[in-house]
């Protein structure tokens, strides 16, 4: 066999298109992380307040986004939002909205956990020093909660990257969709081509996620070592 299929990937525009798809994947992941992260920090902080109705609503929000699979959420936003709000949304926009809402829910739980892990006397001392609510948050809670929240947040980032593979389902030209198109165009002539395309996709996701996983594991270990001596 003169052709193992892999060289097809470097013919014509094929590889450039592959990289373009990779760019779309990355863009959606980064925007989702930023919007969802900010949303999660705000909601997480709100969840530490003593306000019963607010707690119930935020808890419900979290549970709904935990119970319903992300694929289903994606299609709910895809079909329902344009109808109800009379909005034209691109597929990429639909994905960013869905993923950001999901990220916000997950992030709020991480942030809440980190905030309530800060010992109570820290806040009481801050109050005794006369710091207002915002100052307490900015100078006392946040610096101590951040290291606790960091590993979980990094792991969430890897989950976001992996979730972007769902973009294909709403016809966004992400890396998976480009790969799929290339295989459909060339696959029947060279059966091994599909193996290489999906193999390379595997490696690309791995390259994105693995360093983040290692980083999260390392800082979590360091933190535990520091707190346990």
């Amino acid at each position: 066999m003169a052709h193992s299929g892999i060289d097809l990937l470097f013919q014509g525009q094929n590889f450039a298109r592959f990289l373009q798809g990779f760019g779309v994947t990355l863009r959606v992941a980064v925007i989702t992380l930023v919007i969802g992260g900010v949303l999660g920090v705000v909601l997480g902080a709100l969840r530490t307040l003593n306000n019963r109705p607010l707690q119930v609503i935020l808890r419900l929000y979290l549970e709904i986004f935990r119970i319903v699979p992300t694929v289903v959420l994606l299609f709910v936003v895809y079909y329902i939002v344009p109808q109800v709000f009379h909005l034209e949304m691109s597929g990429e926009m639909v994905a960013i909205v869905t993923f950001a809402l999901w990220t916000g829910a997950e992030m709020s739980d991480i942030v809440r956990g980190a905030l309530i892990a800060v010992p109570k006397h820290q806040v009481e001392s801050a109050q005794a020093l006369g710091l207002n609510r915002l100052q307490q948050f900015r100078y006392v809670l946040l610096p101590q909660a951040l290291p606790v929240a960091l590993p979980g947040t990094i792991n969430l980032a890897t989950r976001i990257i992996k979730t972007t593979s769902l973009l294909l389902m709403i016809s966004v030209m992400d890396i998976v969709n480009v790969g799929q198109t290339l295989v459909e165009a060339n696959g029947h002539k060279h059966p091994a081509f599909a193996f290489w395309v999906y193999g390379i996709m595997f490696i690309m996701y791995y390259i994105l996620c693995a360093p983040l996983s290692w980083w999260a594991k390392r800082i979590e270990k360091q933190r535990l070592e520091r707190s346990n001596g």
Partner: protein
Amino acid sequence: MDWTVIARSLPQFTAGFWLTLKLSAIGILGSLIVGALVSLAQYFKLPGLRQLATVYIEISRNTPLLVQLFFIYYGLPGLGVKLSATVSGVFGLMFLGGSYMAEAFTSGYNAISKGQLESGRALGLTNVQLARYVVVPQGLAASVPALAANVIFLIKETSIFTVIAIPELTNTALDLIGLYYRSNEYLFVLVVAYAIILIPLSVGLTWLERRVRYGTFGN
């Protein structure tokens, strides 16, 4: 919302519902077996197998299920390995779930003090005996919360099976939407169907966690 549309779609959704349950059950059972073997290979530092286990966990945890499924279903035939969609789906779920279950088991084993392991060795127990009488019984209790979270996670992941056209719940809904354009009705049924599976399960698993914690630590 048109209830007659919903009523007429129920037979299809019921079939999808059972398929989701069946594939989840097989996939989760397989994941538990893979996870148990992988975690023990790592815990007892079995030469060769341990490195293999680490590589497997690395790859499995850092790639999306969708790409794993495409690789198994569309990529492997290039090497002469042809599997049906359903078999690819179950293998994919096991490939993904095995590493998550392994990490859950490992975190449980790590809760056991090293002294117990050393005592066991001093008594002349073999690795298999150590696993059977010391590590697994105690580690299992500590890993229940993580295992339970993985069960929920894996059931939700079966929704991705739709990309290789396995007629489970999500695929059923998307197919019906494609045929009749009643997205509100079918998505409503879809969300309810997942809620029927996942809410009781989530409540049940929380109860189990509490029982196990009570049985182990008495609080």
